[in-house]
């Protein structure tokens, strides 16, 4: 399926990536090329085929619902762009 500049703008917004106006058309062409190549999957008969969800069959393990880590805010915050008094500092979320 070919996608147009408007679709790229919408998808880029969903993905939270700023795409400059002049890149929308070239990006639409690139993505359309890839999606058209992917379209060949339509040839494969998948009626009644269960989708694969894991490469090697395994059930997800459960563990005790107890605290195993934490209580170390300095390590958690050590890579933060901005912190104050043991808190992350982020742009205003609610106007």
């Amino acid at each position, binding site marked *: 399926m070919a996608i147009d500049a408007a679709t790229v703008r919408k998808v880029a917004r*969903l993905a939270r990536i700023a795409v400059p106006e002049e890149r929308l058309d070239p990006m639409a062409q690139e*993505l359309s090329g890839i999606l058209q190549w992917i379209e060949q999957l339509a*040839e494969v008969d998948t009626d009644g085929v269960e989708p*694969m969800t894991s490469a090697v069959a*395994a059930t997800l393990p459960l563990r005790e619902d107890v605290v195993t880590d934490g209580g170390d805010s300095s390590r958690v915050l050590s*890579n933060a*762009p901005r912190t104050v008094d043991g808190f992350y500092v982020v742009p205003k979320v609610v106007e």
Partner: protein
Amino acid sequence: MSDLTSLTLKGALDGLRSKAFSSVELTQAHVDAVEAARALNAFVLETPDKALEMARAADRRIASGEAGRLEGVPLGIKDLFCTEGVRSTACSNILTPFVPTYESTVTANLFRDGAVMLGKLNMDEFAMGSSNETSAFGPVVNPWRINGGNQALTPGGSSGGSASAVAADLCLGATATDTGGSIRQPAAFTGTVGIKPTYGRCSRWGIVAFASSLDQAGPIAKTVEDAAILLTSMAGHDPKDSTSLPVETPDFVPFVGKSVKGLRIGVPKEYRVDGMPAEIEALWQQGIEWLRDAGCEIVEVSLPHTKYALPAYYIVAPAEASSNLARYDGMRYGLRAEGANLTEVYENTRAQGFGEEVKRRILIGTYVLSAGYYDAYYLKAQKVRRRIADDFDEAWKTCDALLTPTAPSAAFALGERNADPIAMYLNDVFTVTTNLAGLPSISVPAGLDAQGLPLGLQVIGRALDEGTVFSVAGALEKAAGFRAKAERWW
């Protein structure tokens, strides 16, 4: 460089145990080799002080008789692995300021066994690429050149730094990761050995995530035996990764050199693609003859959905990547760009932090997962993936392992293929099937093409049957007698 850097990992372990040299001597020789090889751009961070400190500790353990199975051998670590207190970036600008406060399970396992870290290795950004050209630190250069030429060639990707460093004798082995072929294709391009184990053998904990249902760690090494030594240390069940398989890790080393007599080797007829050089076809036939001579029975098999593996991969991998990479929001770690409001901060951070190929894949992934398209793309791809896995299950009824080429070409020039994303994706046509099916697969150097560049053969095994894969790879290595090294120009 010195004789110490031309050793295999096994040779170095023997020398350390017999006290022919110390880990400090061995490590210093490699530190010097790394410094002298900056033209290859294989390392994005050199950690010589840490390496020598680890080497001194290893020498103390060797002296006191407490040596681990990798005691004192210097390795390179792909920058996708989080290393405690050592910058880990996935070669992306969005993580350039990131210093983990924890150690990935795989590197922790290697260090538990006494390995020494020389530094962090270059790679495609977030492991998305087949030529190392998407790295924020610039491409790695392959130590190999065509006969009489001086054009810079790609070492392949995404584990290009790992492959280049091992091929150039900068380290005795390296960690790598493989989502669609990122261990095996670079190994083939550089005359090294690389194995992607069964999905779930190695813990993914602490490895920067790309496509979680496909990502697996493995080693790149100089020999099949070295790869077996490294994988034995790297693998193992880890409760911190829910997809890590709760199975014992065998010692893989005894499988190397084991007779392959009586094994049935499948040759999949679909692994012939248009435009594949005749030399690769000829090498494949040679590999078949080598295994026949070693007592294997050769069986033609069919994997009819092979051609659909790459398109399925380019739905599944970008979909999972778009989800995994949503965490890079500029709030808790990594780059934060300015913006007029919160949304703009997110959008500018991600626009500045991610490179073009990563953005392309995030957008594809976001599109195929967006409302109304999930069934047509992601669900369809997961059904095709099941068909590909079923093809292998059918093949295992008549054979014990498969032999294929690793890549459809030898190493190509940097810049030659990055204009067309699909042309680049086709590099992984023979490797991506086993990521989708979760199977172990290895690349072994098997010969040189007419231009003097290495070519690899791939052996694929049943899930959790790395043992047979190592045995067949060992037989190929022995028959090929591949000893060529890149002539030193760096």
